[in-house]
């Protein structure tokens, strides 16, 4: 574990969501994933109630990626995320109220309601809803880190479908040529909106990165512990100045793409519910701890929703 793994959550966040001081790491990880899961489910429910407008992309099933990667980031590092950014943001900042208020379009939202679900900005974090373009943006931040010589890393999250965008390859090339401290986390959740990987992607996913001189670490897992180990090694390697790297995580999205659009085979979805991150990691906790944490998260989130709703 890197020393940052247990860094305290930013001030103003709720320990019931981000981690209670002194609790075992396994508890903390479960809590954070549970937090993200319930945040997303709550959002979807609020949408159904008509309490929210616009659209949203939940990361249900992918919570472990966010928690595992952000554990290894430190002050000065930067995350660039995409349309499916809530988990990344919450794992990074713990700021449930800021994000909820943002999605509700409130003035107290992280971007005062300007950005909404997919255009978030906070210290060390940004997201944008245009596929691909964030990758060179993250590389630019990595170039700034390199020029500053401060050992900071720039992390960008993309999906499998985003491998369709040419600018991703332009950037891999330049990042490799210039040995930029950039970590690309590719969350291959097997689908891009309605399109399965096989219809979107020819050749070999990992080979694509390697061909541009960017080493790839590939892992097929929803286990936050496994993922954290690998992510820690990748972040450390990037931080050491050896140039860009890719962490390619094969995972699965359990919810629909945005609000109600899902035409995937039900049995495929069902099978993945059996190995989703909370199930896999939850086994490591005893039942009482799990329910206690679940309850704490629930209570904290209920307060967040109530507070956010009451905001002007």
């Amino acid at each position, binding site marked *: 574990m890197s020393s940052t793994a247990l860094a305290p959550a930013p001030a103003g966040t709720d320990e019931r969501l981000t981690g209670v001081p002194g609790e075992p790491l396994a508890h903390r990880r479960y809590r954070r994933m549970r937090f993200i899961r319930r945040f997303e489910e709550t959002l979807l429910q609020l949408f159904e109630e008509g309490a929210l407008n616009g659209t949203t992309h939940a990361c249900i099933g992918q919570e472990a990626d966010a928690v595992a990667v952000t554990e290894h980031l430190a002050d000065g590092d930067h995350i660039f995320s995409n349309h499916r950014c809530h988990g990344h943001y919450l794992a990074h900042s713990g700021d449930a109220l800021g994000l909820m208020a943002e999605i509700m379009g409130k003035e107290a939202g992280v971007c005062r309601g300007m950005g909404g*679900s997919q*255009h978030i900005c906070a210290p060390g974090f940004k997201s944008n809803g*245009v596929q691909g373009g964030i990758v060179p943006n993250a590389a630019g931040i990595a170039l700034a880190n390199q020029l500053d010589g401060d050992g900071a890393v720039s992390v960008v999250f993309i999906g499998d479908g985003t*491998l369709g965008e040419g600018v991703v390859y332009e950037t891999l090339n330049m990042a490799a040529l210039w040995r930029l401290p950039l970590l690309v986390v590719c969350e291959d959740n097997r689908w891009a909106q309605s399109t399965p990987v096989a219809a*979107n992607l020819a050749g070999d996913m990992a080979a694509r990165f390697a061909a541009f001189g960017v080493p790839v670490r590939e892992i097929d897992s929803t286990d936050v512990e496994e993922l954290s180990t690998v992510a820690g090694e990748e972040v450390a390697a990037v931080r050491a100045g050896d140039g860009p790297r890719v962490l390619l995580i094969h995972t699965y999205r359990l919810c629909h793409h945005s609000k109600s659009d899902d035409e995937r085979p039900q049995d495929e979805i069902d099978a993945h519910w059996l190995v989703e991150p909370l199930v896999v990691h939850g086994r490591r906790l005893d039942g009482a701890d799990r329910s206690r944490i679940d309850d704490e998260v629930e209570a904290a989130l209920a307060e967040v929703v109530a507070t956010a709703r009451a905001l002007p």
Partner: protein
Amino acid sequence: MIFAKELNDTLRGALTGDRRVVLLGEDIADPYGGAFKVTRGLSTAFPQRVRTTPISEGAIAGISAGLALAGYRPIAEVMFGDFLTLMFDQVVNHMAKYQAMYAGQATCPVVIRAATGGHRGYGPTHSQSLEKHFLGVPHLRVVAASLYHDPRTVFADFLGRDEPVLYVEHKLLYPQHLTSPVNGRVGDLIAGSDASPGALPTIRLSAVPAEDCSVSVLAYGYQAHLAAQVIERLAIEEEIFAELIVPAQIAPMDWAPVERSVAVTGRLVTVEEGADGWSWGAEAASVISRRLFGRLDRPVDVVASDATVIPSSKTKEAAVLVGSARIEAAIRAAAN
């Protein structure tokens, strides 16, 4: 039928009637049938010629251009018009150039369909009306979907001619009903249709005969629909009579119907949802101020959205984008 279904039917007709028609776009295949369901059922009926693509807007446009150069009639869908930016090079430096640059030895009749516009809280990168940046690209036609133009007529025109076209479909039109003029009327409004030979018709709508109108309003797409509602209301409630002019093709423009209307009213308000500044209406103001120099009662008023990012928040978005209130205020001011 709602407009999305009319469009679907139009595309089905085009695929059936013309084996050169090929549809390309992200997530357009069944069962999904496109983000706005416009292509639903088509990939099942025409699996070879309706192809879902990777998320590669540049190559979608570029492959479409190649198909067109080879004699096909590609129709490419852009899921959100905001991503037309990624096709800009192919549009400007490839498809719009080939015919003239090759001295007429090739044509490149690509149709790009883009779902545009806001008012849905989709935020800064999924709500824009970026078509103004494509106006004035030499040899590119820009056409806007409207409820007054049957898409069958519009696509027949596209397939019958050899130029590339950008066709913008405001998202809020999809669930509306097509209301092409029938017997000289659209609902309670009098409807006229002007067309220079070979051009798509420009629709004129007014509550009273055009001669009795005191303001001309030029609008397209969803904003034309809003303007028609405002005009109807103002006629009934305030006896303010305006004539609405709705072109299908917004660039290059056939100015004649606009000029004829403004020659009568002496007042022109243009309405568009795109951001203010170097917008569609600016060219209208430039042209009409020149053509009717000395014959206008007041300056042309260009109504466009605030020149800023479109917020996600519903109230903030409404404050930035043109909507009925701004249209009404502009028509009232013009009628004074």
